[in-house]
């Protein structure tokens, strides 16, 4: 797989190889600084007081004891907070759903448990934390609604659609009639659990007040532009008065897409006090904003005896907050994955008194694909088909929801290579037929899918006379390897050694780029960097050609390659000139260029773009004790060109581990009486630990795609999608028990059907 991505410039030397992270040494030596670690001489520390109730109002708030503590600078509440914009739209960030975004300390009204009710600012963190414990709040309590099942009858079709989120397609055929008439029918209701992102780094913001009155803001955000524009509009500042940086993130998973309340509060206090302020959330406060809301899902499949689908219905009701209509794509995947003449997909929302849910790694797909891919396994058993054969029987080369072919879809290769690596052909499909000692062995599989997206992005590149190149833009590296792949792309485009290239990210003074999310960063920022570097290549070539006695005097750009720091005539490397010599000889201090990348409209008119995967899972189950071990996973991924085999594999490994968590462990447990998540710490909210993770094998199948010049389709999401279904299907194969409610904890294995 060595497709040349830019015919007239560099060769794939680093792109496609397993280059180690360029930011790795900084991270493991502690040189990498995170939003809550930047200092300022006048730094004050803010600690958030969180609401004990989920719904109601603040009758009174007594901060006198806190204010009396020596070292406390101010206690900010809704009663004394300085004014910010009174236009709700000014709080809508770049990825906000429809509605009126939450504003901290705006009123006495409580709309979710853990809502900030005060910010205690002190000279040091310990004083602020102590004083925060002395703030007394008297609440008027109203019974909260947090039980999705209880609220589902009140669900509604969101009147305003969320930008970038496709609503379900119009139904086609007649799914109800076809289902009733189908020879084989399966019908199941599927539930998951609410999940919280829980990146290692809790949310934090440091707002530094500069001498000239401008603000330098370090914020845990997946794209600094979002924080920047939010602060400017909410606080009525000119864009140039705010600079936002976030060079590193300790994980995001979507929790850092939107500016969160700690940013607002740090900014509020800094502006109010005229001094620098840092606000860091505690681990338990990480349960007080954004989460993956579970959905109540029903999937009804009708098929003929051969397994060909004749009817497909997928309905989902998902929770949102009282103040915003958060939406994600949950049911559409079913329509995109399978060929069926009668399809109906519906999606509605139910209001809950929780914070607004938010995007969490493969938002919507984790949820919806779990349901459809479990239902397909049920259909495989109902029709006596092998699960792979069933999927092939209903395979589609075009997207039925848009009636357009896929730009590329190597899912069949995923099935083939994944099955071979896993040893699928040795599977006895009979449930409870495979055993090892006391343990039942189960093999299950599922398909994964994620949309391949690209966003308008720019990147800037500067080549200096010493032959060193700096590239960068505003987007964030959320741990995915963005620094590394951009460095690789830049190095290859200009034929430079890797260590001559520096990539800078996460700073509003860099070229404009959106938040990192949706698996679009490699395509978007990667293309922009490539274009910027290619423009420099063209400039350098022109200069080279004009040099005295230039060996390239008669060459044109299409006939040269950039390699080893030189511009060479293709096929005749003796005719070459070093880039440093070009700049020196022409008296050029530096060459710079900005590259712009945007979705290819011509491509989008003709094609749909998705990544796919096939996941194969082995579980071993001690049925008597309800213990499930996920002992083996093979994930075959079709995601276009792979820029870096190492960071790409790590992306998929991480996605799979998170998928194991979703299937077996993760669950934020609500006490509906008080509308509060109760297991709000990492001891009681269980993510998988090393002991839970065994062999994971990642395969990247060959796939050529033309949606962007790099041929990449994105990897951040696809690794997790379908994993829970594959595990749940393996559990069925092992035990004969179909558990349609995640996570599959020991009690569910033990439960009577």
């Amino acid at each position: 797989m060595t497709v040349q991505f830019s015919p007239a410039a560099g060769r794939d030397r680093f792109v496609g190889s397993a280059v180690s992270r360029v930011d790795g040494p900084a991270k493991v030596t502690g040189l990498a600084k995170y939003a809550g670690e930047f200092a300022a001489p006048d730094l004050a520390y803010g600690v958030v007081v969180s609401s004990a109730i989920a719904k109601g109002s603040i009758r009174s708030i007594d901060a006198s004891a806190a204010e009396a503590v020596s070292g406390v600078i101010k206690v900010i509440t809704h009663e004394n907070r300085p004014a910010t914009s009174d236009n709700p739209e000014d709080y809508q960030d770049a990825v906000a759903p429809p509605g009126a975004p939450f504003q901290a300390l705006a009123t006495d009204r409580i709309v979710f448990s853990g809502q900030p009710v005060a910010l205690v600012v002190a000279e040091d963190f310990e004083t602020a934390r102590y004083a925060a414990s002395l703030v007394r709040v008297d609440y008027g309590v109203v019974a909260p609604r947090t039980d999705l099942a209880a609220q589902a009858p009140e669900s509604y079709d969101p009147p305003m659609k969320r930008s970038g989120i496709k609503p379900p397609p119009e139904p086609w055929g007649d799914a109800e009639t076809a289902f009733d008439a189908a020879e084989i029918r399966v019908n199941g209701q599927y539930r998951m659990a609410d999940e919280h992102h829980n990146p290692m780094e809790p949310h934090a913001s440091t707002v530094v007040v500069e001498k000239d009155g401008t603000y330098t803001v370090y914020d845990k955000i997946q794209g600094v532009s979002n924080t920047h524009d939010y602060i400017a509009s909410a606080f009525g500042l000119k864009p140039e008065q705010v600079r936002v940086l976030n060079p590193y993130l300790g994980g995001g998973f979507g929790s850092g897409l939107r500016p969160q309340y700690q940013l607002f509060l740090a900014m509020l206090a800094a502006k109010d006090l005229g001094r620098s302020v840092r606000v860091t959330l505690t681990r338990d406060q990480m349960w007080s904003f954004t989460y993956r809301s579970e959905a109540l899902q029903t999937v009804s499949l009708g098929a003929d005896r051969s397994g060909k689908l004749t009817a497909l219905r997928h309905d989902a009701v998902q929770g949102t907050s009282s103040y915003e209509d958060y939406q994600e794509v949950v049911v559409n995947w079913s329509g995109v994955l399978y060929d069926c003449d009668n399809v109906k997909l519906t999606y509605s929302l139910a209001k809950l008194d929780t914070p607004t849910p938010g995007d969490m790694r493969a938002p919507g797909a984790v949820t919806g694909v779990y349901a459809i891919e479990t239902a397909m396994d049920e259909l495989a058993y109902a029709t006596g088909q092998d699960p792979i054969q069933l999927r092939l029987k209903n395979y589609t080369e075009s997207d039925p929801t848009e009636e357009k072919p896929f730009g590329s879809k190597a899912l069949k290769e995923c099935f083939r290579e994944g099955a071979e690596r896993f040893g699928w052909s040795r599977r006895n499909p009979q449930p409870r037929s495979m055993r090892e000692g006391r343990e039942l062995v189960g093999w299950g599989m599922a398909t994964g899918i994620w949309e391949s997206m690209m966003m308008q992005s720019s990147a800037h590149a500067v080549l200096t006379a010493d032959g060193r190149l700096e590239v960068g833009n505003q987007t964030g590296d959320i741990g995915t390897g963005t620094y590394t792949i951009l460095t690789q792309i830049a190095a290859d485009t200009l034929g430079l050694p890797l260590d001559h290239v520096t990539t800078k990210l996460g700073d509003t003074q860099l070229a404009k780029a959106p938040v990192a999310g949706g698996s679009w960063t490699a395509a978007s920022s990667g293309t922009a960097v490539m274009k910027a570097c290619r423009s420099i290549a063209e400039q350098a070539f022109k200069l080279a050609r004009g040099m005295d006695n230039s060996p390239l005097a008669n060459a044109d750009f299409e006939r040269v390659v950039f390699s080893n720091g030189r511009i060479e005539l293709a096929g005749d490397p003796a005719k070459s000139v070093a880039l440093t010599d070009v700049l020196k000889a022409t008296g050029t201090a530096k060459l710079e260029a900005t590259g712009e990348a945007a979705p290819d409209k011509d491509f989008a008119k003709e094609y749909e773009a998705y990544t796919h995967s096939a996941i194969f899972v082995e579980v071993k189950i001690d049925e008597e004790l309800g213990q499930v071990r996920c002992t083996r996973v093979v994930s075959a991924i079709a995601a276009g060109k792979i820029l870096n085999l190492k960071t790409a594999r790590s992306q998929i490994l991480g996605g799979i581990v998170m998928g194991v968590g979703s299937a077996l462990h993760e669950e934020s447990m609500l006490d509906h009486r008080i509308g509060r998540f109760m297991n709000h710490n990492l001891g009681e909210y269980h993510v998988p630990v090393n002991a839970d993770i065994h062999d994971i094998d990642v395969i990247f199948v060959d796939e050529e795609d033309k949606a962007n010049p790099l041929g990449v389709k994105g990897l951040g999401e696809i690794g997790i999608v379908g994993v829970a279904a594959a595990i749940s299907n393996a559990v069925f194969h092992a035990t004969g028990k179909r558990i349609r409610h995640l996570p599959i904890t020991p009690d569910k294995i033990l439960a009577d059907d």
Partner: protein
Amino acid sequence: MNRFDYVRPSTVAEAVQALGSDPAARFIAGGTNLIDLMKYDVERPGKLIDITRLPLDKIEEREGGLRIGALVTNATLAYDARIRERYPLLADAILAGASAQLRNAASTGGNLLQRTRCYYFYDTATPCNKREPGSGCSAIGGVDRIHAILGTSDKCIATHPSDMCVALAALEAVVQVSGPQGDRSIPFAEFHRLPGDEPSKDTNLAPGEIVLAIDLPAKGFGGTHHTYLKLRDRLSYAFALVSVAAALELDGQTIRTARLALGGVAHKPWRNTDAEALLQGKPATRETFKAAADLILREAKPQATNGFKIELARRAIVRGLEQAAAGTPQSQSDKRIQ
């Protein structure tokens, strides 16, 4: 976290004196639980007495058994050659708990005194009789999946979180304490309490008392007829839904002596000597083990969502006794259950 005074005595007498009758004073050793609780404002000590300089960090031979100083770390204890050889059940139970980092810091005495992991106890936004006597129990009728099934009261359904203590209960350890009234010994079964009407009291330590050591009796169930089987929601770094400490002495296939204690099911390590008596003299068969399990769980009472723990405990007891009888103790490194 509140502000507090800090003192660091160098003798037991000084430590006991520093504690005095001050209800707001707390000893701190490893701090693996107390500091968490302080960060959550569950504990707001006025004074911390750092006892890490007291000479209580030795494991010593004593009357055929061992005396474990209260400051011996969990890791030191679990890997001590004498413990591994003569009290393997204890070593296994310790290694089933927490993480390597926590075991390196946590002390033996502190392990005895760790507080429950009930969500509501940890969350000062909710009433809790253990945290604030008389305020009510939020766990009853709430998120009660991990809560107790034995020995609960209408005031509290919390569990004791320790693994080590389950083994100590099975081994009939004795707790040595010192206080204003002098030194005394507390049999392990009497050290922890059931919640009753006073769930705020976890133990029968009198005000002003300090734990000096744990005495292990000569009979340690060395060899292989023992197990510590811990069932939980993930395979490491999680508190037990149910755990079983079992130790047997066999004459051929007949049980000569049995010890059996459960964790994760009650406000204290749950040992039922009637069940042990039932096992004595019986053949080491599944039927016998089931009878013992039934006896232990006869009084079990489910809450709204933790009823599964009764059946899980029943099966865990049977499996634990099977492992002990077969001489195949549960491995704590490879978590696979035999």
